[in-house]
């Protein structure tokens, strides 16, 4: 449940930045940091796709997996928990790299990127807890 809520929040953050990047949203609300400097840097694109759009895909996948895990059919599924943790770990690494770029290369911090990084860190921790709970439950059985 925790992961589903965090993923949904992350999805909207990533969607907000993506809509800005493609021009649907004109100005970013950014009370802390220099969001536009980060979002208009060359690092805001990855493999020809806005970084935020990768975030949308990752959060959507994690939201889907976490909701699936709440269904009876997959409740307690080890495979699902591992998949979620793997996705969260990959996203966390990607997010850490982006934070490094912000701090040491672009020299500007984007408030929304920091929020996203915190969300993904929380999702990763929740994923670790979920895996340990599922392992314990299945080993008890």
């Amino acid at each position, binding site marked *: 449940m925790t992961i589903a*809520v965090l993923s949904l*929040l992350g999805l909207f953050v990533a*969607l*907000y930045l993506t*809509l800005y990047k493609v021009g649907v949203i004109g100005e970013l609300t950014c009370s802390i940091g220099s969001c*536009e400097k980060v979002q*208009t840097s060359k690092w805001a694109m990855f493999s020809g796709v806005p970084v935020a759009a990768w975030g949308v895909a990752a959060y959507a996948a994690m939201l889907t997996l976490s909701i699936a895990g709440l269904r009876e059919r997959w409740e307690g599924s080890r495979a699902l928990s591992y998949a979620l943790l793997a996705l969260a770990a990959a996203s966390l690494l990607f997010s850490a790299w982006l934070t490094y770029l912000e701090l040491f290369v672009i020299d500007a911090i984007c408030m929304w990127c920091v929020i996203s990084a915190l969300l993904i860190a929380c999702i990763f921790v929740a994923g670790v807890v979920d895996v340990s709970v599922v392992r314990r439950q299945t080993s008890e059985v």
Partner: protein
Amino acid sequence: MVKARRKADRRPFFMALGALALAGVAALAYQASKKSDAPKPSIVQQRGTPANAKPYVLGKPDAPVQIMEFADFECPGCAQFATITEPDVRQRLVDAGKARYSYYDFPLSEIHRNTISASNAAACADEQGRFWEMHDKLFNGQPNWNGAATDNPKRVFRTYASELGIKVDQWEQCYDAQKYLARIMGNKARGDSLGVGGTPTFVIGKRVFKNGLTFDQMAAWVDSAAVDARAAAAPARPPAKTDSAPKRKPGGA
């Protein structure tokens, strides 16, 4: 029985998740609708005076021929000229010392909503001596910032400024203040005074070309204007010992 209870237990959670999703969609829709409130340049109605005109110039001051270009950064024909023909013009006419090239803004803001912003971006790059680099980036990247692509071209322009290595903060202050608006509109007024109606329009010597030019055409007209300029600069000949009036060169550009 247990499954049914568990299912019922999760119903409030899914309802809360759904409510959160709706709130998120509403917030994004609100943000997207705010874009039309973004400040728009208030310059469209302003008129310049030719006295404020100050073109961006390439080439030697004593070059025999002057080429003036009146262009709109958002005009596709101007972009085509800038990307295909102009590199040759710079290399083979300007760098070769045959001509001096002056760029005048001629923003057609009635049909191109981001054009004045682009002129503004270029003028602010000129403040740091990087007009021509910004000029090239604007024309090369025109589909990324034109009125069809975005309501907020500034973020693209700022990326260009950053890539050019100019002081982005200074550039941004200049851009936001529309510091060189009088110059931009003055350049347009200069074009108006010459009868420019569309873009790109070129003036080579004293001839006006309203329909664009290929490199070969431009080079030929530069040569022609150079001949005219030499003739005009040549010392007056002694009166001809004939009864007929001296023949004068037609047109003289």
